[in-house]
């Protein structure tokens, strides 16, 4: 049975607001204040970054990840898939802008079969998704690096030793 993971609109709202805030902060001085060339280059660079960030949020809104016993498929405006037997790398990173490193977010990256997938922890059911990926990775004999292992531990996921097919079966019941 297949499991579908999507980004809830509520979780994307923050991204939209950030993109809007960033575009405003950069576009207003560019259009109204006639800054010197160094600041113009910097603002244009940042404007591009914020626009890309906003576009990415739109892409995410229409993207879903379908996970089955065969692999993971990203469908939506951009379509990619990785078969579990082709999974040859994954890492789970944690980022926070706070000095105490609280209130951050995680980022899961998968690669295999010439494709790369990148998934944020704001997606619904992120922990389950990481669990399924780690089981598939274990089946392929992939050892998570130290950072990934620590972050998986934080999510309460220990390195599984069961076959993914069994795991997917139980996850979907």
């Amino acid at each position, binding site marked *: 049975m297949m499991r579908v993971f999507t980004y809830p609109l509520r979780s994307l709202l923050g991204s939209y607001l*950030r993109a809007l*805030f*960033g575009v405003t*902060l950069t576009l207003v*001085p560019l259009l*109204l*204040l*006639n*800054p*010197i060339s160094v*600041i113009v280059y910097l603002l244009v660079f*940042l404007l591009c*970054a*914020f626009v*890309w*960030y906003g576009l990415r949020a739109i892409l995410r809104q229409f993207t879903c990840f379908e996970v089955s016993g065969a692999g993971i498929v990203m469908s939506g405006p951009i379509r990619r898939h990785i078969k579990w037997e082709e999974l040859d790398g994954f890492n789970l*990173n*944690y*980022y926070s*802008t706070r000095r*105490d*490193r*609280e209130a*951050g*977010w*995680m*980022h899961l990256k998968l690669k295999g079969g010439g494709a790369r997938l990148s998934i*944020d922890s704001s997606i619904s059911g992120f922990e389950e998704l990481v669990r399924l990926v780690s089981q598939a990775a274990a089946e392929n004999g992939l050892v998570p690096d*130290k*950072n990934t292992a*620590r*972050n998986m*531990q*934080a*999510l*309460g996921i220990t390195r599984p030793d069961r076959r993914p097919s069994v795991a997917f079966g139980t996850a979907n019941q």
Partner: protein
Amino acid sequence: MFTYFVHRVLIMIPTLLVISILTFVIIQLPPGDYLSNQLEELRSQGESASAMAKIAFYREQYALDKSPIEQYALWMGFWPGPNGFSGLIQGNWGQSFAYDLPVKEVVGDRLGLSFLINFSTILFIYVVAFPIGVYSATRQYSIGDYGFTLIGYLGLATPNFLLAMVLLYYANVYFGVSIGGLMDDKYINQPWSFDKAMSVLDHMIVPVIVIGTSGTASMIRRLRANLLDELQKQYVTTAKAKGVPRLKALIKYPIRMSLNPFIADIGNLLPDVISGSVIVSMVLSLPTVGPLLLEALRNQDQYMAGSLLMFLALLTVVGMFISDVLLAVLDPRIRLTGGATK
């Protein structure tokens, strides 16, 4: 990582705006301004019509007769003045009333030299602290470790300006080297050339050592402590028991792990280095922004002081941004407190 970059930039831009407001408030806090002080002085000496007219012109030109909010908006370039938008954002740093010149002309090469000194100091701190820290941790309680620890404590305890004066004296007496200034006199106000650059590098050694000593000492202590923590962990014992070569068992994980706080400390180090360099520049007569800033603050030369403070704040904020990004790349891990937490 891209998301992190965007989040971090979104914090940095408002931070700079808040700093600009605070800077402006601070330079406005003392009663009066440079021009009102000048006016009083002229009145006490008998008024000079042309000087009075000039002061009136400046007062109107720089909106000193307007509210502080308007003055701030004009200074930053958020609001059009008599010459349209013409503030920091547009590259106009305002007028230095004390020098009767645009701030940009008064500052000249000093911004670049200040950046060079601060950057070289940070580099010096890391280049010196890293090998000593590793040596001290791997040879704990050896004579070398005790020696470096003693030097480290001395470095921490000695104020920079005192060290500068001591070096100023001994370098002159024993080596015949004049370490005041940042280049030989013949290169002052000359265009940049290879010889001038070499002269600057030559003169930079002592200031960099003076400004960097306390930072180096604290970095050594921190790296030593971090590395000792790592070396006592079970994975190192296991690696040694399995016959992993000593150097590999050191470099593979312990050093990498102990580097994280080392890099995160750039953020704490920068404000120290920058404020330290201001004082040391006074003592060593370095042509950096330090002496100008002090003079501007004393004279209430508000545009000069404001522009220099903004430059120093920008250096700090950008440095902290770089440090945070490096740390996010090196250590993208969650901090576990007690049990496993998200």
